């Protein structure tokens, strides 16, 4: 019952996926997943399995699993060029970034600045034309289970129930009792009651929560989020941001978050990378010095205001450049 987490799973050299492991004793309660009680949450998690036996306990971080996946991302001299017949589009160029284990960073910029492209490259969904991206020292070549991905919308498998969606990853990776894991992660996002609903029966916000649960259920060291709240209304969005911070605090995965919402980026992140457009590259890195835990009230503080002003100025410069070049 020590904090044994799935990030201890051996990693396949080529695919980067955790190697299937047989559990000798399936009757034993799962060691890998302790229901997480996020701060300020009441009834979520662990209700079904007798709270006395399994203490709600947060993973204590990387210290106890030395030398194994931590979620450090190294982006070295990366460029992505799209070549379509005669047109050559440099989407991303000259990006050099190291993202620390457990860090929450945002890629911020106007639409079309290549932030999603960069994120997709980290996830292995796009192969960089130049340079190298590695996660914990292992080069990324194709999508793999080291990165959980939450897309903007409609990425849940519509033919699976919410529970099946969440249990899919654990099942694919050969984790023991995937359904149980699925239930626990659904409970984490407060949707245990909707386990048997299909995505089409859920609201946009619920779908994104299922999406987050699904991405986390494989316990990836890195979580990539591509404008996950972009399609939600302002209220839902704000609640989801807070919820995400709670979950991140509990899991301490590295998060790379793509958004064009300045407040969202600052509120969530340790560092915000403001991107330059055409070709996309990092214009400036802004360290968000605000303390944690954060609540939406923090947006009203002067410190937040200062950062916001600085970021908005940078963004505006970029947007103007795009705007002017577009109208020529």
């Amino acid at each position, binding site marked *: 019952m020590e904090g044994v987490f799935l990030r201890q799973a051996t990693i396949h050299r080529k695919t980067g*996926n*955790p190697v299937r492991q047989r559990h000798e004793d399936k009757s034993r309660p799962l060691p890998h997943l302790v229901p997480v009680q996020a701060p300020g949450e009441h009834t979520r998690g662990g209700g079904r399995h007798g709270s006395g036996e399994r203490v709600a306990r947060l993973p204590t971080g990387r210290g106890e699993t030395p030398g194994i996946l931590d979620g450090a991302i190294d982006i070295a001299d990366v460029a992505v060029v799209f070549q379509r017949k005669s047109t050559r589009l440099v989407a991303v160029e000259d990006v050099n970034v190291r993202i620390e284990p457990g860090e929450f960073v945002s890629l911020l910029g106007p639409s079309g600045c290549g932030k999603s492209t960069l994120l997709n490259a980290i*996830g*292995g*969904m796009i192969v960089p034309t130049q340079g190298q991206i590695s996660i914990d020292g292992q080069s990324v070549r*194709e*999508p*793999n*289970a080291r*990165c*959980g*991905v939450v*897309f903007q919308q*409609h*990425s849940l*498998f*519509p*033919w*699976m129930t919410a529970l099946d969606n969440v249990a*899919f*990853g654990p099942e*694919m*990776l050969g984790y023991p009792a995937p359904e149980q894991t699925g239930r626990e992660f659904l409970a984490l996002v407060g949707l245990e009651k909707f386990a048997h609903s*299909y*995505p*089409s029966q859920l609201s946009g916000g619920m779908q994104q929560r299922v999406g987050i649960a*699904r*991405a986390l259920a*494989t316990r*990836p060291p890195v979580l990539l989020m591509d404008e996950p709240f972009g399609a939600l209304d302002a209220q839902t969005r704000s609640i989801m941001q807070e919820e995400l911070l709670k979950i991140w605090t509990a899991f301490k995965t590295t998060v790379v978050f793509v958004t064009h919402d300045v407040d969202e980026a600052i509120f969530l992140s340790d560092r915000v990378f403001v991107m330059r457009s055409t070709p996309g590259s990092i214009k400036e890195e802004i360290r968000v010095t605000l303390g944690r835990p954060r609540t939406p009230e923090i947006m009203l503080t002067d410190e937040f205001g200062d950062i916001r002003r600085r970021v908005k100025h940078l963004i505006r410069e970029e947007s103007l450049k795009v705007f002017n070049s577009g109208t020529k």
Partner: protein
Amino acid sequence: MTTLSSFGLTRTFAFPALTGWTSNLLGMATGFGILVLVWTVIAWRLGNAVLLPVPLAVLEGFSMLLRDGSLIADVLASLKRVFVGFLIAAFIAVPLAMLLAYFRPLRRAVLPVINLIRPIPPIAWIPIAILWFGIGDKPSYFITAIAAFFPIFLNSFFGGQSVEDQHLNAAKCLGAGKRALLLRILFPSALPMIWTGLKIGLGQSWMAVVTAELIAAQSGLGYMIQISRLNLETSHVLVGMVTIGVLGSIMTLMLSGVEGFILPWKQK
């Protein structure tokens, strides 16, 4: 509707549902009524039972063929040929379509061949079918399979091709391998189109079996129609035709009925 809704929930729900149902039935009865009426009038004016017997004569023929058991035997013979041929087609077409949708190089080799064979109507295969398989069930299996294959294959293939990259990427990030991508992502995301293909395929198969039996069999509805024509028993020809129509509709209805179990996520 709007005025009814002011009476309260129960009425708004009960009334339109009932009128919807009864009006459907009423519409159906009217349609068939007109058909039978026109048919009767024309048959009377012609006054020739060989060209067109009155509906009542067809009904008599129907009860006679039902009583001597030959109609049931013919129906069963035809149904068996349809189902065997249809199943053969489905078991080849669906996996093949999924593989082609997934592996591009395979597609380049196989698609041109399929496009070449596709325009050949099932009836053009009959001489070959007789040469290869003789007379009886086998050539009919072949013909019904040919007829069902293309709608099933093409719909499945397009369904498989239209799988969303986002779903494939999401699955890969969740650790899915090739096999799982094929069976757990590609196949279910193509399933609505596969289902459409199966529905069309079954219809085509049913039409083809009659064609096949006209020539290449000695039992079944098609054969019965053919023999009755030679005996100038037009009422029996019409019994066969009506039976084909009714059974075809029932098959379609049955498939629509189980759709909810096959595609549960498509239900509202």
